[in-house]
């Protein structure tokens, strides 16, 4: 069976510091991978998606970037965090095509 991991679970960072959040998937190959942010009262917003290694598409302009160095690894980064980057970050995977997305446990980020 497939599992998806995210770490860290919680992170408190000062404004201006760098960020690296990691997501890995087990039990499948060549998945589509997604990064979402959930902010209070604003629902889930898709930030990035990837259909293969090194292929990243950005949905909204922002202070964040994403990379996919390996088939089942998806990383969300920032060089300098802003207060507005606070939120709950969720990684998801799906098979190629129109398939159900399965979500990881999430990372809660607080930028102070």
């Amino acid at each position: 069976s497939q599992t998806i991991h995210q770490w860290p679970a919680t992170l408190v960072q000062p404004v201006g510091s760098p960020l690296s959040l990691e997501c890995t998937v087990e039990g499948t190959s060549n998945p589509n991978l997604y990064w979402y942010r959930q902010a209070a009262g604003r629902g889930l917003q898709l930030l990035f998606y990837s259909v293969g290694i090194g292929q990243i598409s950005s949905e909204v302009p922002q202070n964040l970037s994403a990379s996919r160095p390996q088939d089942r690894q998806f990383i969300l980064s920032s060089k300098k965090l802003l207060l507005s980057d606070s939120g709950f970050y969720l990684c998801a995977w799906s098979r190629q095509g129109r398939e159900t997305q399965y979500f990881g446990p999430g990372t809660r980020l607080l930028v102070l």
Partner: protein
Amino acid sequence: SQELEQSPQSLIVQEGKNLTINCTSSKTLYGLYWYKQKYGEGLIFLMMLQKGGEEKSHEKITAKLDEKKQQSSLHITASQPSHAGIYLCGADTFIGGSNYKLTFGKGTLLTVNP
């Protein structure tokens, strides 16, 4: 762009009562997903609907997609405290190639009082 509106935004029910959550789309739905989320946790997939008039059930939860494929409802029968959480609907949106992203509603917060 596609927008999903969920109603109600929040709902408090007594244990044992039935309830319905609605999800209305600004465009035709080609794939509609229901997820449940407990606070501070990831989303758990419940059901997926594709065809107009389709209805699916899992335990005490039933989801329907209307014939016109612009509205879905989630019905819980004889609610239990374990049903409490945030329910989100998500719609397939084509992003190119053979791939899709999900556009979500803002969610419905369900509280079940024992």
